[in-house]
């Protein structure tokens, strides 16, 4: 374990260095996400205010605030560029350099992204959670913040990230078949974003659709962590949804291993 840490720590470090080297990129990326979540919040607030009810599809105003800002955190947390990195490396042949190292192929992506993510999370999570909790307190008059839920949320987003990473790696291996996957990747991100509840809370959707998304890996990515933070899942429910996340993470991990093996045979390293 300790040995593994020593081997992969440099990748974590390299990931952080990448962020600090291209900090302006990174800051704009974060700002873009903040704006995005503000916009979606204000749209839903307008919908909320235009109705005469106390709740919208069972969401009170404070709950909506929590939902849209926490989903912003989880969405930032689970984002993985692995598919594009793989596709790019397949295209320009630099995937060869990764294969020449005595390290696990998937693990290098994981630890590299982890580095950048740690920084992102530190910068995001504290102010967003404080902001959300203050506005929730102001609106409802009671302190609803739970440290336990925050910790469980954090664990759940890590599982969600793993699901998305391994899914992205699987998807990236498509690059062996389609040499340019840029367009397909955008479509994939769009579908994931919609089906995981990042655009519209899943509870707003028709029951049948919601059930499907809940069981498919989608809900595990964004909706589940946020529900955990909001304290909606308790006891057996909580265990069930954690179990589902773990199942999907293992499923895509195994699939990515299989695809890596298959595509190694079809790899044609281009250039020089």
């Amino acid at each position, binding site marked *: 374990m300790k040995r593994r840490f020593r081997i992969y720590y440099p*990748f974590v470090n390299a990931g952080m260095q990448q962020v600090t080297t291209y900090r302006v990129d990174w800051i704009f990326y974060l700002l873009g996400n903040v704006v995005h979540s503000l916009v979606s919040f204000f749209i839903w607030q307008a919908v909320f205010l235009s109705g005469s009810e106390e709740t919208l599809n069972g969401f009170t105003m404070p709950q909506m605030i929590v939902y849209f800002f926490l989903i912003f955190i989880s969405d930032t947390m689970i984002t993985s560029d692995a598919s594009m990195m793989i596709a790019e490396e397949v295209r320009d042949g630099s995937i*060869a350099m990764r*294969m*020449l190292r*005595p390290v*696990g192929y998937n693990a290098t992506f994981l630890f590299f992204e982890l580095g950048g993510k740690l920084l992102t999370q530190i910068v995001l999570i504290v102010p967003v959670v404080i902001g959300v909790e203050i506005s929730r307190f102001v609106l409802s008059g009671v302190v609803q913040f739970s440290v336990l839920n925050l910790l469980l949320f954090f664990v759940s987003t890590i599982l969600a990230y793993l699901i998305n990473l391994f899914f992205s790696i699987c998807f990236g291996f498509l690059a062996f078949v389609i040499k340019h996957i840029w367009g397909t990747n955008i479509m994939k991100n769009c579908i994931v974003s919609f089906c995981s509840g990042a655009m519209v809370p899943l509870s707003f959707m028709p029951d049948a659709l919601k059930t499907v998304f809940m069981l498919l890996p989608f809900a595990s990515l964004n909706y589940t962590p946020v529900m955990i933070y909001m304290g909606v899942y308790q006891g057996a429910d909580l265990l069930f949804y954690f179990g589902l996340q773990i199942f999907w993470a293992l499923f895509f991990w195994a699939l990515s291993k299989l695809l890596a093996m298959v595509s190694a045979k079809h*790899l044609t*390293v281009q250039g*020089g």
Partner: protein
Amino acid sequence: MIEVANLRKEFKKTIKEPGLKGSLKSLFHPQSEQVVAVDNISFHVPKGEILGFIGPNGAGKSTVIKMLTGILTPTSGKCTINGQNPVVNRKNYVKEIGVVFGQRTQLWWDLPLRETYGVLKEIYEVDDKSYRERMAFLNETLDLDSFISRPVRTLSLGQRMRADIAASLLHSPKVLFLDEPTIGLDVVVKDNIRRAIEQINSQEQTTVILTTHDLADIEQLADRIVMIDKGKNVFDGSVRTLKSRYGQMRELNFVTESPHPAETLRYREQFHFAEDDVSVECEGTAVKVRFNSAVVPIADMLSYTLQTVQVSDISVKDADIEEIIRRLYMQGVE
């Protein structure tokens, strides 16, 4: 040490006709053709040998190296290095080899060079003491000190190549694969790199496979040459064998005041040389004649030249390997 048996690699190339129509056509009816990049190549390299692996552009050298390093899976045939099959146990195998592709870097673009080595130290599990000794040695032979704290993306080509070679040697590999390690470098850097390869090879019995277009690399370093062309093995033997088998070319150099030496001498007509067997280059008063000494003995060439024009400073040189290889590449080898 390295066993290569009947190695073959085919690539599928998609063919696209030009223009929009071609694009649409290939979208719905993708057409592809087989390219045989490596065709039935076999050779053997004993431990501690430096093998010069040469051939014209597109011969398939890089493809062979990629298969030997486990990056590409052969279509058929086998390669075994140190008893291991490169693609079977990749993680274990790559610990024992060092690889440099001159055309691309394996260093992290954004990291300072020193940190890159730190990363490699951990990845390859080099202990502190060996690491310090190794870095000292590499510093000395490749002169890394002057740029070791700079990010890799700011290095010049020569610096980057030295850095890459040092990176490939950090973990004391048993086999070193170098694919055009001197491409685009100046004489001093080339010399540095050759010295490093030589030292590593003699001190640690490292087996080296080296592809290059610079035949000085071959002459200084290689114990043996394997030459391939269009994916096929065309020569396997020592530099000396290559010279004695194909090296009847000689170079006659002289200086003359006579105005049109080439027109006056007319070697081809005089001795009935074939097209490839003689060539004359004039530069001011200096004349360089390359000729096949198997067709016309050196003595005949000399006496004919001396009788026909007024000559000062005449000499005959052994063919250099470059000349031999130039002829081989041009004619192809049967």
